[in-house]
């Protein structure tokens, strides 16, 4: 019977093209507005590393000002000091740990006519690549020995490799950065976790860095951070060593822990570490260490702006308004066909059969509305792209994937069915005798 109802539904849509088009337009507009914002929320709040997000923990130590929390009400700082980061990295109490910060470098190509160019770079320890499951196009990451010996090795991003080596395998070749020669160990394949979870303090939705090299090298080269640096007390001298020994937080520390036991053990270790530091006059605040896995950390950092949530609410309300209009239009359409309903009832259609017929018709309108809604969503996203074109990450936020397209269609069908419930219920209540004059 479903195919019969679908045939009747298509016939009805053809018979009432204007009314049907208005319903499709109402649903498409509501879906378009709603899905535009839902899509942005979905991309922003998505899990950037779903298969490992529950194993990776961001470390926070409360080394802050005794009189004022790093962030109210009682949040520890988002980053760690060099002293703490390197101490915890060296202790190696987690399965794997990575300490890193964002910096900048200037590459000096050796080809004729190629000018030096600036690249964003990340100074990090070797576990960065394996912990964050970074894909390689060529070669691999450097090893721990390179970290320990401050070897001048580098991993290039795909675009930089295109620029320097025309996309060929450069493993073993040299790259000169700020006058120092680095040996290439690998080239990243396409990789863009969204949000950029490992360093949300420096543009949550920004591009990943173009070049990666050992932390030990950047410390030896006295390369300062190009990301956020926060200090709660002044650095006594302006020397690099004084900065390293300061209470300024500027590095991100991540650890890999499997299971709740490892997590609680590591947290206990952090508490013990802080207690040992208290003994030498550091960490004046009460114990307040935190371990957040990736998604907890995204939530803690409010990666999804509250504006987006407000917009999402407004978009849902707009969809509801569109659906109310659809209800009115469907009601008008169904009431115009009261005679047809009465006749079908007289010829043997039960109330359930009438209900099924009109629900299938509404479902068809929902499918068409959903497809049109995808078009409206694309228009909406294009509008956002134009409006916020100056941000380099906007393209990633306005990308519509298959999941969102399917969601748009399903939402449209569910919306159309929900809108059809009241009119269809009214249709089921039509008294056949009253519609057939006498009989």
């Amino acid at each position, binding site marked *: 019977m479903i195919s019969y109802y679908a045939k009747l539904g298509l016939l009805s849509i053809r018979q009432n093209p204007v009314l049907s088009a208005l319903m499709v337009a109402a649903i498409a507009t509501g879906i378009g507005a709603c899905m535009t914002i839902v899509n942005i929320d979905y991309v922003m709040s998505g899990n950037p590393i779903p298969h490992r997000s529950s194993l990776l923990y961001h470390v926070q130590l409360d080394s802050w000002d005794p009189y004022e929390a790093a962030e109210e009400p009682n949040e520890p700082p988002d980053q760690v000091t060099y002293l703490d980061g390197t101490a915890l990295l060296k202790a190696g109490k987690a399965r794997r740990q990575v300490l890193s910060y964002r910096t900048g470098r200037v590459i000096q190509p050796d080809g004729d006519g190629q000018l030096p160019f600036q690249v964003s770079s990340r100074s990090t320890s070797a576990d960065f690549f394996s912990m964050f499951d970074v894909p390689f196009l060529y070669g691999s990451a450097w090893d721990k020995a390179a970290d320990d010996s401050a070897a001048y090795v580098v991993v290039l991003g795909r675009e930089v490799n295109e620029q320097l080596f025309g996309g060929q395998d450069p493993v073993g070749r040299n790259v000169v950065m700020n006058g120092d020669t680095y040996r290439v160990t690998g080239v990243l394949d396409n990789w863009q976790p969204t949000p950029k979870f490992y360093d949300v303090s420096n543009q949550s939705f920004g591009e990943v860095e173009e070049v990666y090299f050992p932390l030990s090298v950047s410390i030896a080269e006295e390369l300062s951070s190009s990301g956020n640096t926060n200090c709660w007390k002044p650095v006594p001298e302006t020397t690099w060593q004084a900065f390293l020994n300061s209470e300024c937080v500027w590095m991100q520390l991540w650890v890999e822990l499997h299971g709740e036991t490892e997590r609680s053990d590591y947290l206990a270790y952090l508490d013990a570490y802080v207690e040992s530091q208290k003994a030498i006059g550091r960490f004046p605040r009460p114990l307040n260490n935190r371990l957040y896995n990736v998604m907890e950390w995204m939530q803690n950092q409010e990666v999804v702006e509250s504006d987006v949530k407000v917009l999402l609410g407004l978009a849902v309300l707009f969809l509801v308004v569109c659906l109310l209009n659809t209800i009115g239009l469907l009601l008008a359409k169904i009431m115009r066909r009261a005679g047809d309903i009465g006749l079908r009832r007289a010829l043997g259609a*039960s109330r359930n059969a009438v209900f099924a017929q009109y629900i299938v018709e509404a479902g068809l309108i929902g499918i068409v509305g959903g497809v049109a809604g995808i078009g409206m969503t694309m228009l909406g996203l294009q509008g956002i792209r134009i409006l916020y074109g100056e941000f380099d990450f906007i393209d990633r936020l306005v990308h519509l994937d298959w999941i969102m397209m399917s969601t748009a269609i399903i939402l449209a069908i569910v919306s159309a069915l929900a809108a059809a419930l009241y009119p269809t219920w009214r249709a089921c209540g039509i008294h056949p005798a009253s519609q057939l004059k006498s009989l």
Partner: protein
Amino acid sequence: MLNMKDVSKIYRTESVETHALREFSFDVDEGEFISVTGPSGSGKTTFLNIAGLLEEFSGGTYELDGCNVTNLNDRERSRLRNEKIGFIFQSFNLIPELDVFDNVDVPLRYRKFSSAERRKRIDRVIDLVGLGSRAHHLPSQLSGGQQQRVAIARALAGEPRFLLADEPTGNLDSQMAESVMELLEDINRNGTTIIMVTHEKNLAKRARRNIFMRDGCVSNNDSALHLAASSA
């Protein structure tokens, strides 16, 4: 096959009660051709609506083909209506966007016959009413008489036990009316019970039995006496 005993129907508003049928008792045997006449407001329509299971009644009992319809739910009533009753309306009530074939198909769809069975039945009844060559015409492409034949074919397709016809010739000229009456008489001769409401005495006379209704009751259950009297 149709037995109504003391059936009543009361329409209630906030301040008024209208008795459309009062202790209405009526039996129909298989194969009968009954005409129902009476002035406007006498309860003919209400009787037919109740007989056709299109309307509930307020009191009494009604058995259709041995089945007491009083406590049936909507699905059971719909099924009984679909299987046992064929309707013929004064204004044909064809679905304008469906062609002849699909109009006749409507009641069969709710019967859930196979496609082959539906096609066989539709072809048979369309041929029976003489519209075999018009199966894929829309109602708007047919004359009034042809449209009523389609409605009769639709009523017959499910092979119902009886037909309820409401002024089946009311919208037709005399020539078309005659051909439709002849068709109904043929159908009756082949064993289908027919109850026909009409205002036209010459058509009512062609039924084997006439009931005359007044004020929601059967005033006279003998066509010969009543029709003769009113002719005089």
